[in-house]
Structures are given as C-alpha cells and as structure tokens.
C-alpha cells in the first residue's frame, strides 16, 4: 500500500456472547460505523476471536481490498496479538490494525444500555480516525539470554532451579537466609503421607549445592533488576557471613571453640525457641554447611575485643572479620520469583494470648518442637519441662476472619490434623482441634482426616472465643482455658488444656511490596503476587519474562508449590529456548530538523537510551535500549521527539474522534 492510498477500513464489532451484546446495541454500533469516513465495511460477529470470526476479516481484506482494520471487542491485553496475526495472515502490516475496548471499558462497567451503546460508538469513531493515520512498522527481534534467575530458595525455588539446571540451563539461585530449604526445612513430617520432611527435602538441597549448572547465593538479596524480557540484568547484594564460603570446609570447629561456651542467642530458624552461639549454622542439614557470624551477637564485631578462639580453631583461615557487603551482577533471560510467605502474626488476635500466656505457641513453633533437631528434640514440652497432658489446636487464626485476613489459608486444616497426630504420638496427650469447617480437598487428604478421627482426635466445631487463664474451678486452675461455642452440640464450652497451638494462616512476605516494585509485578488486595491469568496463565505475570511459583502467589501446600515451580521452570524454558524474543517497535524517534540540541531528553531517559550526536548537534535514540516509555516525547521543548505507533498526531486524532 502506498502512503497516499485512500484508507479502506473494515470495522468488526464483537458480541462476545452476551458479554458485550447484553449491554451494547451491537447492530446499532455497526450501522453507525458504516457512516464513518473511510469505512468500507462494518460487521457484527458472535465471537470475533474465533476462527470463523478471523476468517471473516481475512476474506474481507482479500475480497474488498481493505487496507486498515478496527476490531471493537475486549481489552487489547487479551486479543491484540490475535488480530495483529489475523492482519498479517491477510497480507496487511499488523500495525495497520487498531483495537477498541468495548467490553472491560464499556459493557462490563455499566448497566445503562443507551449510554453503553453511545460510548461504544464514540470509541469506534475515535479508533477509525486513529487507524487511518497509522503507518506500517516492523517488530524488532532481540536475542534471549539462556540463563535464568530464581529468587527464593524454599521448596518451590529449589525445584524450579533443579528442573532448569537439569535441562542444561545455567541457574542463579538467590536466598536471603544463610541456608536454602525455606519453611519446609522446619517441618518434621509432611501431610498426608507423614513422610519425613527433611528426608525428602535434603537430597534436593544437596543436589542444588552439587549441581554444576547452579550458582547459589545464600544470605543474599536481589537489590535491582534492569532490562527486559530475555535480557535482564540483576544486581545481588551478598551480606557478609564473616566466614569465607570459598575457603570454609564446614568442619564447624569454629562453633565448638567460640568463647561463648553455652547457647544463648535465639535461633531464628527455631523461631527463637532454640538457642545458638554468635557463630552458627541455622540447622544441621543447612546448605551450604558454612557458619555465619551474627554481628549483633559476636563480641569481636560488637566490641572489637575477643580472644578470637574461632579464628584459632579454623585450619583454613576462613574467618574474615573484614568482610563487607558485596554486589554481584548477573545477566539472565528469565526470572522465577518464589519468595514464599510469612506466617500470620498471632499477636494480632490478642484474645488467644500469644506472647502473653505461657504455652501458647504458633503452628510453626509447634513444628520446631516436633522436630528431632528442634529445641525439644521432637517431644513438645511445656515451659516447665513437663509433657502436656492436653493440647488444643485452634484453626483459622488470622484466616477467614473479617478483622484480619478474609481468605482461607488452605493448608491449615491439613497441617493441624498432622500436628494433632504427631503431638499425640510423641506425648500421649489428648488433642483437641477447634475448627470452623474442615477443608481437606486433595489426594489422600480426606483419608488422612478419617484416619485422625479413627485415632480418636477430638474435634470441636466452632470459632474459639478466647484462651484465658481466668479459672472458674479447681480443675481449671493453672490451665489454659479454651472458651468456644460448640456449634454441633449447641453450647458454650470451656476446655482446660496445658498447651495451645495456634494454626496461623499464610500472609505475603513483609517485603513483598519491594519485590513487586523491583520486578514490576502486581498483587491482589491481600498482597500476594498476581498471575497473568488465574486459570490459563497461572505462573506468568504481566511482566514478560518474570514468572511466579509457590506461596508468594497465594497460600498453597508443598505438592502445589512444587507443581507450580515445575510449571514456572517449563515456561521459563520455553522462553529462553526460543533464542530470540519479539520486541514491539514502539520506540521514540528524533526529528533532526526540529531538534535544538538542548539535551534535556538525555537526563530524562530512565534507560540511558539517548545519546548526543556532537557533530550534528542533535539527540539520537539507541533503539535497542529504548523501552517506549514516552518520557522524552513529553519532555522535549521543541516537540522534536515522537513515539512510533503512539505518535502525537495519532493521539490527537483519537481524542478529536472522541470529542467530535
């Protein structure tokens, strides 16, 4: 088509079943479209995106010689690509097509049919005027870096990293704690099979350590992400361990010889229940098995004075108090975010006495008390060292609760049943579960519930009102009394117990917001990262090349996290194995005749994509670097910069079309 060829525009208005037709008078919009200048044909179809719908367009292009297309349907997010391909298949340049959104922007947001129809007409008019000006463009292709970054070393991150590494990809795995393993490493057994968590996790952790394709950065955080799909540049900050990982052989003699003879500092891995020295490994199976020195606890790092028995004990001179935070930069083509969750803070339900009454613990603390490597070596004990005779497990703490989190945390019913089983097995205690609804969908889950019932677990249906030490009788004195409305018995009960376990729900990590900002992700109202599509793109995100897996996307258990991690790895693989990626040609261009050489745009460009050409005294845009953000277009005082496909003239014509 030559530039001066008169536009012959085809307008296609989609019913989208009843999605649009239910609110917009589509035939009226079609009739109106026919009256617009340049429109050669206008048609209605039930589903424009279907094959027959697309064929309709292709046929018209060929038979009627159309040279521009407008599709009025859903959001371009969904089907812009579809119709660009339709245009290309019909022999048109795909950028001579424009999509008008009359579903998300019109029919779904009003019930007023007359107003909706009027707005649809106005938007089609604007689109027709815009498309008449559009010029053909060619998309760019950029090479894709085949390496992948995995953010978070819990079970999801570990599984994703291993899958990619086994496929021959080089993977960088970044974990903020001193060891990988995440929350799963804290558990003793897993539901519903009751297999040992560390027996199934530690082989995978070791595999990460030994895999030639995986570079592991523990005690490290991603501080910056630049670039775009296929070409990310990620900056990682490594916190100082004060023990050189390259030299340390993991003999742990330094820990034995520390001047602190006893364990006196709370170990974060044990949620503070267990104690450690200033130099420590968080748990015996840690990967890497290299000690960390906590600068807040270490005498030398705090006061500059110590006998330094650790240094003396180290045969390979790995202890280095001069270590500083270090930054590493890696280039990757795709990023998998698997940053996990944080447990709900039980203090936010003060009626349950957490942090005030002794022997009220959270479920994660109970996991540590049940772990053979935990502070009580696998047998939960009361603060006074005795075994509990009765234990109450309270479900839905901070879940399904309008005052805290309205959503169901999904895993708590099952892990509560598991804890009930383990506590009974280890202590012989009588265990009560207080639940609202028992939710056990999943393979073998309902069977596990049944097994617990057969074991004689006591189940009371009702949301617990409070846990108190205000005794009303001799039998209650010295006990924790659980007050609950037993909704099956139809009465208020007071059940005295020795220990209370609060089954806290899952929440987004405290710093999920920063991660989101760094990677340009979105989130739902509860703060979990949002997938591109809840059903059909569950691990993709709105940022091309960034995928999500595990509990950072929403509450989920181990099997689901692993399944999602595998899916994310496959999606990342599909991307990096493609070799190149199509980049939209929406770059900015400088009109050298208008450019005054003021260089304002150089400072404005966030991507360092503009250079000053000294000879001609004009700005020049490096297309590969330009992201098409438009900042320079707006900033240019001489209106010398324009952005392809979003030229100022197009936008003004579109606005004029709306206002006409």
């Amino acid at each position, binding site marked *: 088509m030559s530039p001066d060829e008169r536009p012959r525009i085809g307008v296609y208005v989609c019913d989208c079943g009843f999605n649009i037709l239910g609110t917009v008078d589509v035939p009226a919009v079609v009739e109106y479209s026919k009256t617009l200048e340049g429109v050669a044909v206008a048609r209605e179809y039930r589903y424009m995106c279907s094959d027959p719908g697309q064929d309709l367009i292709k046929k018209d292009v060929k038979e009627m010689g159309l040279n521009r297309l407008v599709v009025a349907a859903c959001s371009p997010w969904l089907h812009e690509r579809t119709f660009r391909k339709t245009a290309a298949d019909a022999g048109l340049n795909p950028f001579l097509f424009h999509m008008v959104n009359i579903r998300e922007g019109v029919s779904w947001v009003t019930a007023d049919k007359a107003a909706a129809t009027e707005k649809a007409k106005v938007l089609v008019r604007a689109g027709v005027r815009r498309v008449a000006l559009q010029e053909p463009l060619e998309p760019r292709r950029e090479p894709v870096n085949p390496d992948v970054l995995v953010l978070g070393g819990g079970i999801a991150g570990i599984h994703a990293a291993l899958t990619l590494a086994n496929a021959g990809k080089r993977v960088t795995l970044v974990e903020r704690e001193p060891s990988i393993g995440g929350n799963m490493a804290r558990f003793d057994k897993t539901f519903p099979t009751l297999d040992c968590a560390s027996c199934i996790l530690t082989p995978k952790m070791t595999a990460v350590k030994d895999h030639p394709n995986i570079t592991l950065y523990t005690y490290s955080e991603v501080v910056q992400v630049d670039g775009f799909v296929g070409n990310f540049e990620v900056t990682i900050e490594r916190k100082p361990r004060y023990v050189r990982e390259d030299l340390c052989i993991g003999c742990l003699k330094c820990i034995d010889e520390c001047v602190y003879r006893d364990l006196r500092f709370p170990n974060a891995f044990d949620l503070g229940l267990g104690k450690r020295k200033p130099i420590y490994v968080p748990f015996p199976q840690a990967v890497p098995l290299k000690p960390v020195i906590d600068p807040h606890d270490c005498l030398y790092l705090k006061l500059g004075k110590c006998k330094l028995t650790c240094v003396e004990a180290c045969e390979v001179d790995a202890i280095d108090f001069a270590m500083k935070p270090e930054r590493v930069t890696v280039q990757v083509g795709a990023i998998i975010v698997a940053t996990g969750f944080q447990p709900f803070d039980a203090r936010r339900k*003060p009626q349950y006495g957490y942090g005030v009454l002794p022997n009220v613990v959270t479920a994660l603390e109970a996991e540590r008390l049940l772990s053979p490597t935990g502070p009580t070596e696998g047998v939960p004990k009361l603060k006074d060292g005795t075994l509990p005779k009765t234990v109450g497990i309270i479900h839905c703490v901070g879940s399904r609760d309008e005052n805290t989190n309205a959503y169901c945390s999904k895993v708590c019913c099952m892990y509560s049943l598991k804890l009930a089983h383990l506590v009974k097995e280890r202590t012989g205690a009588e265990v009560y579960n207080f639940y609202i609804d028992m939710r056990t969908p999943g393979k073998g889950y309902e069977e596990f519930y049944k097994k617990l019932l057969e074991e004689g677990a006591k189940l009371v249906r009702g949301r617990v009102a409070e846990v108190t030490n205000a005794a009303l009788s001799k039998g209650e004195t010295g006990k924790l009394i659980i007050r609950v409305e037993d909704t099956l018995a139809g009465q208020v009960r007071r059940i005295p117990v020795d220990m209370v376990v609060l089954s806290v729900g899952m929440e987004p990590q405290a710093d999920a917001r920063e991660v989101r900002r760094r990677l340009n992700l979105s989130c739902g109202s509860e703060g979990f990262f949002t997938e591109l599509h809840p059903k059909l793109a569950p691990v993709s995100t709105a940022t091309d090349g960034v995928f999500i897996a595990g509990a950072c996307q929403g509450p989920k258990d181990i099997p689901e996290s692993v399944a999602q991690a595998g899916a994310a790895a496959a999606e990342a693989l599909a991307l990096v194995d493609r070799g190149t990626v199509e980049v939209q040609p929406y770059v900015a261009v400088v009109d050298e005749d208008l450019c005054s050489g003021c260089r304002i745009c150089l400072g404005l460009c966030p991507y360092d994509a503009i250079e000053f050409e000294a000879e001609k005294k004009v700005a020049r845009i490096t297309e590969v670097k330009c992201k098409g953000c438009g900042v320079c277009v707006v900033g240019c005082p001489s209106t010398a910069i324009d952005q392809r496909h979003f030229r100022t003239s197009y936008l003004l014509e579109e606005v004029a079309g709306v206002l006409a």
Partner: protein
Amino acid sequence: MTEYLYYPGCSVKGAGQPYERSLLAVFRALGQGLTEIDDWNCCGATAYLSVDQDMALLLASRNLALAERAAGKDVVAPCSGCFLALTKAQETLKEYPEHRARVVEALGRAQLAYRGTARVRHPLEVLLRDVGAEEIQRRVKRPLKHLRVAPYYGCAILRPYQSVDDAHTPHVLEDLIRLTGATAVDFAHKSRCCGGMLTTGVQTVGLRLVEILLDAAKQVEADVIVTTCPLCQYNLEVYQDRLRKVTGNRYDIPILYFTQLLGLALGLSDAELGMDMLLRVPVLAAVKA
C-alpha cells in the same frame, strides 16, 4: 496546674460517694483543678441507647456541649457507665454525620452548640498520662508496702473503646498500684464481668459472677480489690454476706476505688477519702498498720 471539667453522673452522688470524695481529694492533693460542669444531666447510661438512639445521643452530648460552653476541653468522667455513654456519644457523632446533624440541630434549639472539641477522659488515664508516674511517685508519703492488691478494671473502660488501655492486656491499673508501693497481684479475672445489673435482675447469675471474682482474688491472696467503677464496687462489696449465706464460703475482702488507694499512699486522711463509708474498712486498717 491543669484544669479539668468534671462530669460526676448520678452514681458518685449516691452509693458511689467514696469515689467522688477520694477523686476530688486526690486531684486536689496533686494540684489538679476539677470543676463540676454546671447543669449537667443524666448520661443515659447503657439502657437508653437501645430504646432511642437519637435521644440517648442527645442526652449524653448535651453534657459535652455544656463542657464546650464552659470552654473546657477535657471532661473527666469517673463512673464507668458515664465514661462509656459519653465516649460513645463523642465517637458516634464523629463517625456518623447524620446523627451529628440531628443532635446539633436539637441542641441548637436549646441555644447550645456542639463542635466536637470536648474530650471525654477517665481519671485513671489522666493520672498516669497527664500528671505522670514521676510526679505521683514524688508525692507518695505513705508507701503501701506489704499490701497485695488485685487490679479490677470491669468492662466499660476497656471495651469497646480502648482510649484508656488495651482491652486484652491492660496494665494502667497495675502501674498505678505499683506507684503506691503496693504489690499488684496477677489477677487473670481483671476485666471479667462483675454481674452488672444481674445482681438485682437475675440474681443467681449475678451472684455467681461476683463469686468468681471474689474466689479468684482469694486464690491469689489479695488483701484488697481495687476497682474503677461504682457498680463493680457495689456488687463486689455488698454481696459478700449474701454469698456466704448461699455458698457457705466466708468472704471478707475490702473493695476500694483506685482513687482511695492512691489517696492513702499520698497520706490523705480516711475521712477525706470516704473510707468510713466502706463496709469493710476495719480489715483494711489492720493491713495498713
């Protein structure tokens, strides 16, 4: 010296007289001014609000409007019932413009204006926050060593508004008890129900609730229970003999207002503090010696 407006309510003019007497004496001793609001009326208590919300709000807020007319900001309301009724009016009018409009209009017809500048305060919180622990400590002349005190908050100053203290883990009363030199015992029942009006309405339930509190105080070997509310004080004190007849258990524990306990530590006389109006003073005198 800070000037406070004083909303007494009916209770402290009747059975709760020792509360008023000791409150005024303590404020005087600490150099705080307390001026009774002129022409104050009933707060509406807990009952009126469920009968006619607008009228109840109007009744309570008239007192706040009077306070504003007297150019006062802080209204000290010692009775828990009054404190709750006035706070509820203050908060409701702040949150719901439609109620506020109706109340303002009605008050206007009586040449009164309500702007929402008055603030309802509880004397316990005034003592600890405004006067301050340091100042109180400095003024203590007679530390009440060896006295074991059960802190008893009752319900209304903690729930639902938490302007005095956190409803689940309150500690201001314990803080004050410690300032007097006494020991605040760990009293798990400190914000449980005293029986309220049930002691007259459904006596079996009311008496049982009183019994729970007295038993709990006995269990932790408290010498006295300190209360913040005229109704709590009345229930816990008056029904001790009745309980003995019903249960056979002997109860003989003095029930003091926190202002009386503080007054004793400040060296005020029994007469100034209305100690002679309590039913169980003799026992306390023995403890004091």
